[in-house]
């Protein structure tokens, strides 16, 4: 008896119709797709994007060449060479981050005693060769100069949790 009932139930196509109503509702439901290059999702102040080296307001580099970031880096992505500058201060002559190796863990940022190396919200830096992914000191400083305002704001917002 039950099977006869099943046959008639399937002939009414009831289940198919209820499936169709689900998709019909979805057709008119609002879409949440973010149209990426034009629209962007909000990013956290802790977002770990492209690194940047910062400068003091007077223009001197913050980095004191302590190599703590190099030591902290689990991926051994940071290469630092140091020499005293004309004023006898310990400064880096070479500061490179190999982004082929970097895993964006943020340990370098945490290790830095003077908030010199930071990670910015900027993440659209695709390049066409691996060599292009080795960021030199110039590029890092440049990135920092360009985004200093945002970096300072993000650091200030995050400060109370540190």
């Amino acid at each position, binding site marked *: 008896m039950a099977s006869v009932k099943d046959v008639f139930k399937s002939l009414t*196509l009831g289940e*198919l119709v209820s*499936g*169709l109503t*689900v*998709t*019909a509702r*979805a*057709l*008119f*439901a609002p*879409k*949440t*797709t973010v*149209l990426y290059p034009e629209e962007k999702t909000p990013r956290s102040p802790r977002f770990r994007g492209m690194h940047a080296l910062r400068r003091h307001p007077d223009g001197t580099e913050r980095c004191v060449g302590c190599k703590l970031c190099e030591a902290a880096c689990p991926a051994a992505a940071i290469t630092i060479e140091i020499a005293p500058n004309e004023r006898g201060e310990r400064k880096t002559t070479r500061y490179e981050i190999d982004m082929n190796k970097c895993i964006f863990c943020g340990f370098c940022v945490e290790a830095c005693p003077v908030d010199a190396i930071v990670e910015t919200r900027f993440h659209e830096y695709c390049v066409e060769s691996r060599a292009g992914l080795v960021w030199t000191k110039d590029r890092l400083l440049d990135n920092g100069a360009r985004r200093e305002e945002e970096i300072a704001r993000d650091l200030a917002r995050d400060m109370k949790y540190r």
Partner: protein
Amino acid sequence: MRVIDDVLAFVLGGLGSRVFGAMWPNVFIALVTLVKIACIVAPLMLSMAYLTLLERKIIGWMQARLGPNRVGPFGLAQPFADGLKLLFKEIVIPSGADKWVFLAAPVFAIAPALAAWAVVPFDDGLVLADVNAGLLTLMAITSIGVYGVVLAGWSSNSRYAFLGGMRSAAQLISYEVAMGLALIVVVMVSNSLNLGDIVRSQGKGLFANAGFSVLSWNWLPLFPVFIVYLVSIVAETNRAPFDMAEGESEIIGFHLEYSGLAFALFYMAEYASMILCSTLAALLFLGGWLSPFGFLPDGFHWLLVKVFVILTGFLWIRATFPRYRYDQVMRLGWKVFIPITLLWTLVVGAWMMSPWSVWK
């Protein structure tokens, strides 16, 4: 269509009879027919292109996505981008494949889907070839399409493609039976094989006289057959959930070895037969160009609206249901649809003979 005759006769009349002499009337008929064919095929190609876009849009919306929207405004140039991409791809012919059959198979697939439009009326009298047995011609032409599938599978020299071809052939032939039986019922009630007459016969009856033509159309008295026909055309055109022929995610279909334009032809054939079958459903069951209510004028636009609705139904079904298992497809065809249509043929036959017949 008469307009084309008159315009061409006016423009070419003098010149033609001077160049071709006594042959001119024959040449003229050929010329007129070619122009008419172009008038049907060109918009058809365009609607095929945009059907693919509509499909991707609708399925996207149903899956809470946006669908293609990058090429041109609202993605309107997407079909052309796709076409161009396929045009520039190489047609790889597998070694050991039967080259000529391999290349002819896609043509076999698309030619019937285009040729069948010859007998399809778009409006009262607006038809390329108003043959008496239009429906029969149409069935005969479209059933050639299965050769495209079989030959493609066979000539590819690949086991997967071969099995896929066999599978699709079995499916197409099975559903053609159910479809044919559904059509028989329609022919019975409208007493004609001419598609124009079938539509006209739906315009009269109790409800039509009262101004509700929509209730006089075949879909209401023949409702089970209408549903069977709708599902059969989904299976006939190899669309989800009956797309065993393609089965891209697990069982791979007959066009496995095809690439470039040859592959595009199979796709165009699929969409062309979708449009054809939808038009047919609109003509046979939904009163073709007739308007649903007495106070609105009949016309071509009604046919367009009906075809659009059925096509959207196709896409809606594709977005909703998972693919059938192969034996379930066959069971549905042979054990469910054929008995239902046979039963309804009997019921309708008895109904027509009874004093309550609505088709007098």
